[in-house]
């Protein structure tokens, strides 16, 4: 004899979960929409000389702060549920946001959120402080930014910067490719410390070497033609 109530309660479980998912999706969609305009604004950096970058960064910061509000909403809702159960719903958009934050910071924006002036990127703790979310939680089961998400965001940043190296030259800025080269080589060295298994992080970080090579080629071309301004190659 089959107990029908077993299937009824399964159905209500499925429905409950679907309702949670829908609610999260709604926030994530707003986050994604804001994210697209952040990316669009930041991509203007590829065609804006660095001394005129300020308005672009200010505009990007406004969009990023709008995204931050969505993250706050997301956190409030996600905190009610097991973190890893629904993490897949927002992880992509959160990564995009973190990589926008990093790019914006590298270009000179978000000054007030960097603890250390000389550092050109935000550590995971600084990103967490900026977004007002915990990072890398091991005991508590609440919303946070994971190490994997942060690292994937850095990889996106590296890819974007390698493109910027090429475009800086077109803008007549011969110092920036060298800066970018030094920075992403440092990050590349960091990534090489990781023991990666066959997962998404491994796949994405395999691509870093191509970004590094792309920038090295630019720097090589410039140095061959003695175009790199003196005293600037270490900045």
């Amino acid at each position, binding site marked *: 004899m089959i107990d029908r109530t077993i*299937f009824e309660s399964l*159905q209500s479980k*499925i429905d409950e979960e679907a309702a949670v998912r829908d609610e999260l999706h709604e926030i994530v969609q707003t986050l994604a929409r804001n994210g697209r305009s952040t990316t669009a604004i930041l991509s203007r950096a590829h065609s804006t000389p660095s001394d005129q970058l300020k308005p672009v960064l200010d505009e990007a910061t406004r969009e990023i702060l709008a995204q931050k509000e969505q993250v706050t909403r997301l956190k409030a809702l996600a905190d009610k549920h097991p*973190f890893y159960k629904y993490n897949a719903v927002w992880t992509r958009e959160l990564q995009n946001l973190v990589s926008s934050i990093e790019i914006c910071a590298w270009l000179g924006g978000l000054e007030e959120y960097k603890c250390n002036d000389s550092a050109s990127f935000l550590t995971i703790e600084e990103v967490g402080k900026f977004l007002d979310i915990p990072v890398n*939680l091991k005991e508590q089961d609440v919303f946070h930014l994971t190490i994997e998400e942060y690292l994937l965001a850095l990889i996106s940043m590296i890819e974007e910067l390698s493109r910027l190296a090429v475009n800086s030259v077109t803008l007549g800025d011969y110092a920036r490719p060298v800066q970018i080269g030094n*920075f992403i080589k440092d*990050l590349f060295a960091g990534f090489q410390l990781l023991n990666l298994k066959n997962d998404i992080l491994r796949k994405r970080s395999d691509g870093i070497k191509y970004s590094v090579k792309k920038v090295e080629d630019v720097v090589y071309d410039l140095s061959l033609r003695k175009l790199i301004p003196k005293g600037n190659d270490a900045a």
Partner: protein
Amino acid sequence: MAGTKRTWDGKQLSLQPTNPTMTEPSTQILSIFETFRNELDEHHDRRERLTKISRDITALSKKIIFSLQRIRKINAPLPPHITTETQTRFTQIQSLFNSALPDLTGPNNWRYQRQLSGAVQEFIEALSFHHYLQWQRLISLREVVAKLPAEVLVTGDDYLLGLFDLTGEMMRFAVTALSAGSVEGTGGLSGEQVGIVVDLREMRSLFEALSVPPTHGLMRDLGKKMEVMQGSVEKVERAAYGVLVRGSERPVGWMPDLSGGDVGGY
């Protein structure tokens, strides 16, 4: 580097002054990444341990199912030799689940849910089959949860997928039972044989009545499982039909063919 100044022995000079400024951020980055490396290593180790436990539990569950398939009676206490066999395996499974607990604290139970869910499903298949043979009833999700340590997640999805697999076991059991010849001379089906056919049909209609939204995680496996389940139910229906109609004509020891898909096994 511009202006490649070199010492008398050819060493590049221009690199020297840049170094002090470069090493500063780079050591900072390296130490950050070292922390990340340790964390990721821990994560990979946990994942591997759980995957291994999961494989062991799956294997034990399959063995339980094999033992149970040797039973011929339903809705009755299990024969003693089978009970001892399954009981030791259930105990082993229990201790395997217990050994997974240190890796399932805090957010980790959901983090590694995928690593363990295969084992949980297989365990549910074994447990529900075990339960069904004794009581001819489905074990409820609450009863399953009670059999496992609280930290082990038994999701509704795992339970549902476990029940799908149960239909396959019920099919094999039913077809064997039907052919094992408890059919009386008149060619009628015994009450319990009819029972399995009815139960399977009921389960099929209940499975089919479930509505799962396309964004739900279940959608990944559901289509395939549904097809297999429908096939199982049909096999049993055909076998019951065959026994009923031609029961008296079949030779002793005849078995319906389980491999046949659309072609009946005759």
